[in-house]
């Protein structure tokens, strides 16, 4: 059911403008990070890489980057493990209370982050936990799992349980089946889940802000730097690197997700 040609092209025009506006704020950051001016404004005055050079010897930033990396890797790994459990249960089994269980697990997706952050803060301080990277990882895990599940469910839906049965009938132990049949078939969606949850953790600010104590992640470090107007160009340079990193990670995640989709389609026909 198509629109008339005229309305289709105006709809197309609208969509292009919309996508352009979606990207302009993201693209302005790298543009100004190469601008030879201490304040980000138009017109651009000249090309420089000095804001990037300024990052090189910055110990505090490197520590923050390291912290982000540790948090991101742990959150991505654990979130994928929990995501596999949930996605498997949701796609394979019918049981009472399934909706409730999945609603509780998915809830962090639509809760105001500040409420998750303060409730974790109160409990963690209450039981005497010191705020550290561990507390940030625990918080990030909560918001990464729903995304992992969304990515992984697609993988589980496309894969035929009879393959696992065949493996068991042929004498593999359940651990062997998991390692040699299930996980390889899920590999693309697992990779996609790892990359997406790492990116989300890398980008997350509010939970990290409340729970990181004296060990800032990169967004928390950036937040601290915003108080100093003179540091803004360096922040933009760092931000550009972060955006580029997210972009690369997400592109790989998308490619992996597509492979998962393709696998499941061809596999489905074959079986």
């Amino acid at each position, binding site marked *: 059911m198509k629109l008339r040609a005229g309305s289709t092209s105006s709809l197309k025009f609208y969509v292009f403008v919309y996508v352009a506006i979606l990207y302009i704020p*993201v693209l302005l950051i790298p543009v100004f990070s190469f601008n030879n001016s201490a304040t980000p404004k138009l017109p651009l005055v000249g090309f420089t890489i000095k804001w990037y050079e300024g990052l090189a010897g910055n110990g505090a930033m490197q520590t923050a980057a390291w912290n982000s990396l540790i948090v991101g890797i742990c959150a991505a790994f654990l979130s994928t493990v929990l995501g596999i459990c949930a996605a498997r249960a949701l796609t394979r089994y019918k049981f009472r209370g399934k909706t409730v269980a999945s609603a509780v697990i998915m809830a962090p997706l639509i809760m105001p982050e500040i409420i*998750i952050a*303060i*409730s974790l803060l109160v409990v963690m301080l209450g039981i005497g936990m010191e705020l550290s990277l561990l507390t940030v990882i625990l918080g990030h895990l909560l918001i990464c799992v729903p995304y992992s599940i969304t990515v992984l469910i697609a993988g589980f839906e496309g894969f035929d349980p009879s393959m696992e049965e065949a493996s068991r009938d042929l004498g593999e132990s359940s651990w062997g089946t998991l390692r040699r049949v299930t996980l390889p078939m899920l590999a693309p969606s697992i990779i996609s889940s790892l990359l997406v949850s790492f990116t989300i953790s890398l980008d997350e600010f509010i939970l990290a802000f409340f729970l990181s104590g004296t060990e800032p992640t990169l967004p928390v470090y950036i*937040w601290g730097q915003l108080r100093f107007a003179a540091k803004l160009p360096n922040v933009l340079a760092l931000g550009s690197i972060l955006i580029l990193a997210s972009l690369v990670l997400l592109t790989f995640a998308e490619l992996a997700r597509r492979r998962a989709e393709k696998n499941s389609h061809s596999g489905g026909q074959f079986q």
Partner: protein
Amino acid sequence: MSVTHQAAAEESLKSGSSFLKSEAGQGWLTISPPFLYALLLLVGPLTVIIANSFWSQDYLTIDHTFTLKNYQAALTEPIYRDLLFRSLYISIMVSVVTVVLAFPVAYFVSFHGGRYKGLWLFIITVPFWSGYLLRILSWKVILGYKGVLNGSLLSLGIISEPMTWLLYSTSAVIITLAHSWAAFAILPIFVSLEKIDRTLLEAAADLGDSWARRFLRITVPLALPGITAALLIVLIPTVGDYVTPKLVGGKDGVMIANAIQVQFGKASNWPLGAALAVSTMIIVCMMAGLIVALLYGLKRILK
């Protein structure tokens, strides 16, 4: 151990293990790690916050006797009441604006995306996942007095002096949040549009319905679950946004999350902060319920 005892023990063991072997048992067993995690780190802490909101703080110690005075303060003190109303107003505006602007995009991708639907969705979601903090910062640069927007409009001669209402205002908060949440509105609408059986539209067309009529009587009612989901998915989280009001909101754009943060930070009055958080959640959920009811009323009218 007597024989009967042993038999009973075996029986109970069997029924226990048969539950674990049943489909329901397997399901619960498999979902339990993420479910327990969410219970322990989400439901548990939320319960603690709710409990906190009924306590009171006396300098540094927390008095555990039940009191409603935090709620009284949260709902009647002008400063908190205003912040609550403003946050609610901002998040409703944001969700409506975001959904209205997002609908045509979701429609385009679903009906005209062809082979490139996946690519379109990827393009739309990428900005959502990169640089949360930086995007807000970027809007500050765009909307500022000497910012990108004012600068461009001045040099094009469209305005003769910079617009001052752009930055540090409620509208700045609404623009920035609507931009941040765009992808979250497009996805659910897209999903519900994808589910529409295209033959219904063809049948209506064959029977002589105009495009506008088909759109209003078939597409919109069938996309309503997606539209509702999109509204709620934007409304609920944005009511508690903390960074956007802080960076681009100025005095007029302060929201309730900023007040909550102060209570858990500088002011250090956890019970009051907890009551503010709980009130916000309850009010926004009531609002969400109202929106659902309104939209379903609308659906009946359209049909």
